[in-house]
């Protein structure tokens, strides 16, 4: 392919090339093929596709997208509940944009609810929702708390602020999930084909390195915490190959500019003051003990689940959509019968196609096959 060159190869490209050579050398030393690496985080998935890294990596490395897209792992029951909240009189649902088009069990979504007259608004942070509650004091503002340990501390800080302000019309429907026990469930089942894990940089910046230790110690899984630039990801993959080649898996922090081994104590403290660990239903993984965050007593007046006491049954999982298998790395999007036929970003069937960080959206948008 002949392409116009604008200047010589820059430093970034040279660094990437050097890392790729090192990865090829290291791969030769690993006995088992293919090496299956799961990138846990949706931001990693997008970055890998956006930069075309799959095309650059040598044959023999298989990248599998994991359960780290918060929209994708939100259970259909929770989405049904969010939609039900939007139908209540006087309630405004404030949400990150990604949640808008996720279909619930009946195919209805917040976007469709909004089109039929519900008050659903996109916000960029929980603070925007709080400001909405101040400005429109006559409405009950209900923020959908979706996200992992990266988002939860900000939501916790917002709830604490609402408490200090004495707000009576601000609520959070907490669907927050926490990563370590989900990974435990993923590997405890014994069905995982994955031997190495690219651990999420953002989540690790909050929780530190120790929550991953059980993976090398109990399951022999190599772990590398990595950032999101292409060279960050390749440094992580190189570390994983080195661990596998030497037969000594560990948790390697390859993202020290953002992650220290203790995590972020202030964020963890704020999270702990407002939330407690609770069992949580994950799409694809089912009910996992202590893998979600509920609002603690003392802040219960902000708990939308309690305030509006909605009873939405978790629907039976009969759907041809394979998002659950894709999230857990058991299938690729190409193996789903709906992918790119009945299910496209324009009319998504499952959450992995809706979320900008979902595996199916990435495969569809950037071409999962070698092109």
């Amino acid at each position, binding site marked *: *392919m*002949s*392409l*116009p060159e*604008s200047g010589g190869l820059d430093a*970034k*490209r040279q660094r*990437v*090339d050097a890392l790729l050579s090192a990865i090829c050398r290291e791969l030769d030393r690993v006995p088992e093929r293919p090496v299956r690496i799961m990138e846990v985080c*949706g*931001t990693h998935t997008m970055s890998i*596709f*956006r*930069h*075309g*890294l*799959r*095309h*650059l990596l040598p044959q023999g490395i298989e990248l599998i997208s994991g359960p780290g897209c*918060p*929209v994708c792992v939100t259970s259909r029951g929770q989405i049904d509940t969010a939609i039900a909240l939007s139908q209540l009189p006087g309630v405004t649902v404030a949400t*990150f*944009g*990604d*949640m*808008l*088009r996720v279909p619930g069990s009946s195919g209805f979504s917040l976007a469709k609810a909004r089109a039929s007259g519900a008050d659903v608004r*996109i916000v*960029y942070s929980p603070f925007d929702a709080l400001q909405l509650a101040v400005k429109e004091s006559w409405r009950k503002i209900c923020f959908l708390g*979706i*996200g*992992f340990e*990266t*988002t939860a501390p900000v939501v916790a800080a917002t709830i604490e602020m609402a408490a200090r302000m004495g707000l009576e019309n601000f609520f959070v429907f907490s669907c927050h999930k926490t990563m370590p026990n989900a990974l435990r469930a993923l590997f405890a089942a014994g069905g995982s084909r994955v031997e190495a894990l690219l651990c999420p940089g*953002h989540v690790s910046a909050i929780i530190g390195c120790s929550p991953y230790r059980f993976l090398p110690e109990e399951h022999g899984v190599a772990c590398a915490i990595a950032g999101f630039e*292409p*060279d960050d990801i390749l440094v992580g993959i190189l570390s994983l190959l080195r661990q596998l080649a030497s037969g000594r898996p560990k948790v390697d922090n390859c993202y020290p500019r953002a992650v220290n081994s203790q995590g972020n104590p202030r964020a963890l403290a704020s999270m702990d003051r407002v939330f407690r660990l609770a069992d949580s239903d994950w799409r694809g993984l089912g009910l996992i003990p202590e893998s979600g965050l509920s609002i603690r007593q003392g802040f219960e007046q902000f708990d939308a689940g309690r305030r509006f006491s909605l009873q939405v049954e978790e629907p039976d999982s009969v759907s041809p959509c394979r998002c659950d298998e894709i999230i857990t790395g058991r299938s690729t999007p190409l193996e789903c019968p709906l992918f790119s036929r009945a299910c*496209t*970003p*324009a009319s998504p069937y499952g959450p992995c196609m809706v*979320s*900008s*960080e979902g595996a199916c959206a990435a495969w*569809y*948008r*950037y*071409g999962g*096959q070698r*092109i």
Partner: protein
Amino acid sequence: MKQDMNRSEDPYEVIVLDHGSGGLASSRLVREIFLSRLSNSYLEELEDSAVLPPAQGSIAFSTDSYVVDPIFFPGGDIGELAVNGTINDLAMKGAEPSALSLGLILEEGFSRRDLERIVDSIARASEEAGVPVVTGDTKVVPRGKADKIFINTAGIGIIPHGFTFSSSRIRPGDRILVSGYMGDHGATIMTQRQGLSLDGGFESDTRALHRLVGRLVKGLGQEIRAFRDPTRGGLATSLVEMAAKAGVTFEISEKAVPVREEVAQVCDILGLDPLYLANEGKMILVVADGAAEQALEILEAAPEADRPALIGTVAEKGVVSVVMETEVGGRRAVEMLTGEPLPRIC
């Protein structure tokens, strides 16, 4: 200073339903706001149609509606956009634009001063482009039934005999160029809409491109295969549409696509991709291989172009319509925009 108390010049006056009634109030509005600013012999006739002289060539005819929010933004406003947008749609077929129509739908209660400001910029854009507004219409709808102001412009232009510019003329081996930085308009609107107080260092690129197209056509003739202005859906969507229509694959280089550093940063913050952001004063052109250097020279000398670049080549049809070599040397597909660009969640 003594205030002029004449009601028609009261700057605090608002638009009322009566202004769209077709009666006396409509007539005053037309005279005071439109005729005084857009004056030309066609418009002054004030009849049901403007009658234009015959011309040599094929007639290009295009229409577009403008509903941008906010209506005033750094680098322009809805009025300027409505003029330049339709002029550019005509220019992308190689036409020389000759006349525009202007239809406005106003919300009851809209500020008369804002309307004057918008018509001022319509007049300025029309005069700078040398394309008169020859016919128009104004309607007013009750408060809440429209958002402030919607504008429709249609335009006609003349394509010189013997010229056709269309994506269906694109062949493998052709080269792909853009006339400047991608995503400025979209990034400006998104930062305004989100209330981000970013000192962007960029503004909307709204600009008429017909004269630049004229120079390119004069210099290169049919060596130019097709023009396209990458507005809604951005560069990515336009490239996919062009390649699909031509039955070829575009191979483009991410590094070669000009994007301002500040726009790239805003995209990082908002979780957007500059390839999908709208442009209002930029074009894509596909030219025969041998004409690429000359096209680039014309673009580089043009005041309407801002960091023009050769961004790729046309290949035989492959698995996908557009393939991009990424900054770090990877390859990926480029797809059309689907849905509104959504903010990222974590």
